[in-house]
């Protein structure tokens, strides 16, 4: 354990703890752009600087490990001015069109510009922006909104391990691109959307996000309904409808999702959803009340059971329903009907 003092508060941290993590333990917030929990810190954006007593220069919090006896200041004039300058520099290379931007409300650049009172940059715009790529079915890419935090590139390469995104060119001409400058739709991109989920600005946004702003949505933590990995995710709801999905840090998925988990939620609001019970009348499935439908089911089961015994009835439960649903189904078959003819498509 190391003893450290942060903004006058003494604290103890384990060997290897970064300044950022030590601040988090004390509930002190530090702005970050390139930092992401599941990636090795690379210290490129430089916005997380703090002052360390005895060090000549400001130190980045995300990557600098605490040392025993370290005294850290997380806010003063020098730090404020430094961060202010970083934001100004980013804004000079940014097409700030917040009104039309999907990220409006969830954009970190916007947030920090507000936090650090940057109303306008003193610098000239110097970057020539690359064209947009809206070829993916699921998301859009607008390089003029990119702040080169490289979260997307590192996520695609290190976590999704798909190697679709890479850094092209050098210096101020650096941009995030695809091999041979391909479009997403012509690349090896698997549409997992993990790059989109980590983008702190409006550079990578889901197509659906044009239609909501972050302050309009509520989030509900749940488990992905598709494969057996059991990814944790947040459903974004606006006006009683799912409008998007964000990955969560579940034990199985650690903030990743696949194309189905991230984008295949539209069936929920689909107009073809069944809304009333149906009973076949004169050969046609006809809307009816719950009472009628349930009676029909119960009477039918009773009659067949009386005539042919319980084993003339069989039931298939569902690998997509919950444990509770399946338990009640199994109990219905065994306890209420009296047969062991219960199965589900575990084998498929």
């Amino acid at each position, binding site marked *: 354990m190391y003893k450290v003092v942060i903004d006058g508060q003494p604290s103890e941290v384990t060997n290897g703890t970064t300044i950022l993590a030590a601040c988090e333990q004390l509930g002190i917030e530090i702005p970050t752009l390139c930092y992401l929990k599941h990636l090795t810190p690379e210290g490129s954006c430089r916005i997380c600087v703090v002052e360390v007593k005895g060090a000549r220069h400001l130190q980045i919090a995300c990557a600098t490990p605490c040392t025993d006896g370290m005294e850290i200041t997380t806010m003063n004039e020098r730090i404020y*001015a430094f961060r202010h*300058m970083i934001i100004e*520099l980013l804004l000079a290379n940014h097409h700030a069109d917040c009104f039309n931007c999907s990220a409006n409300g969830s954009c970190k650049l916007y947030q920090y510009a507000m936090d650090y009172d940057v109303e306008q940059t003193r*610098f000239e715009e110097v970057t020539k922006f690359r064209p947009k790529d809206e070829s993916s079915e699921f998301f859009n890419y607008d390089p003029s909104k990119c702040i080169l935090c490289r979260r997307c590139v590192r996520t695609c390469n290190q976590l999704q391990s798909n190697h679709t995104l890479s850094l092209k060119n*050098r210096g101020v001409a650096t941009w995030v691109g695809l091999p041979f400058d391909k479009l997403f739709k012509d690349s090896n991109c698997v549409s997992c959307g993990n790059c989109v989920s980590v983008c702190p600005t409006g550079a990578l946004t889901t197509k659906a996000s044009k239609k909501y702003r972050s302050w309009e949505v509520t989030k509900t933590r749940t488990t992905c309904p598709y494969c057996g990995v059991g990814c944790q995710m947040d459903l974004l709801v606006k006006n009683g409808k799912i409008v998007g999905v964000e990955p969560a840090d579940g034990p199985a998925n650690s903030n990743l999702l696949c194309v189905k988990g991230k984008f295949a939620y539209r069936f929920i609001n689909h107009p073809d959803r069944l809304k009333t019970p149906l009973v076949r009348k004169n050969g046609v499935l006809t809307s009816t009340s719950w009472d009628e439908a349930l009676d029909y089911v119960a009477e039918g089961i009773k009659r067949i059971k009386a005539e042919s015994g319980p084993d003339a009835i069989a039931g298939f439960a569902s690998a997509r329903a919950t444990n509770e649903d399946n338990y009640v189904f199994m109990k219905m078959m065994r306890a209420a009907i009296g047969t062991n003819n219960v199965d589900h498509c575990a084998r498929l």
Partner: protein
Amino acid sequence: MEELRVVLSKAGDISPIKSSEYVSVGGYEGLRKAVEAPEKVIEFIKASGLRGRGGAGFPTGLKLSFTANTPADQKYIVCNADEGEPGTNKDRVIMEEIPHRIFEGMAIAAVAVGADQGYIYLRAEYPHLKKILEEALADAREHSFIGPNIVNSGFNFDIQLFIGAGAYVCGEETALLDSLEGKRGEPRFKPPFPGVAGLWGKPTLVNNVETLANLPAIILNGPEWFRQIGTEKCPGTKVFTLSGNILNPGVYEYPIGVTIRELFEDVGGCCPNGKKLYAVQTGGASGNIIPPSLLDTPMDIERCSENGATFGAGDLMFIDEDRCLLDVLENLIEFFEHESCGKCTPCRTGNPQLLALIRKFKNGTAKQSDLELMLELGNVMVGGCLCGLGQAAPNPILSAVRFFPEVFKVNNNYERGAS
């Protein structure tokens, strides 16, 4: 003034390829001594006070001990021969004339830290050196100075030549390692330092060509001998590169502590055509620009920084009265803007802004606020960039503003005047 040649001793007098000729002038004797008592090597280097010649001046003995003390199944020695700083040519001369001294230095370091593989990361713009180095390496391998069981000692150590990626930033040690690993060369955050986790995550000693070429003599003649040369805090010699408006440009080896004036007047022969000296850029493209009034500054790391000069890799570029300092600055910042790897915000986005601001001064449209912004930005970059490139890029401007304020004319009425 007589040169004092340690690194370049006998350079040019013997074949660069043939190890037999190098041996005939005492070559590989240091290595033979090192393998007899490998545990003494680091002790010797520490005692000698040798500091890195690649620009940062880090104590070499300490660096060796970091790599030596990190347990690992594999360690590497990397010779930094990227020499990308405009106006630096010293490593090139060492490699052209006496490459075996570098191999010997690498082998000594390998024995000391327990590495069995070395790499020379050669600047892409030195293609002619590829042949020389490869032939010299083959010869060294043939005579068992490198390869399995070097000098019959039981140690194995081989050296492989790697041609660089043609980017200045790849001279930065961690970017160099990325480049060696086949990645886009970008500096890594430190710690961990290469000595602990370097090439492919293994402990790696990265040293400059000249630093490594100092090792054989230190081992052979002992640290006391080395300490007699140079200054107390910076013992030894330095291979200086003189360039710019000077009569005898070139590479010269002198004891550390020699003054800039001695190098300018006695060695370099002053500016040609009787021109007056206007400024000196010290320590390479990213070093400070100083006025002639500071010519008596000794070239020694501490003296330089006290006086506002830069020791760097020992380069001195002389600027005579006919040159416009703003042109020089524009050139330098163009270089940094071009060479920035683009990883960190202040360097990627700051250099183009510095350039834009310098151009404002050039065309007379700069205002007082531009001067202030330039200084503010420069200071943010010095303190806030990820690697030495961005940290040092504003040095020429910041020093020029300090020593040559007359160059930065502001025109606060510009906007009104123009409309």
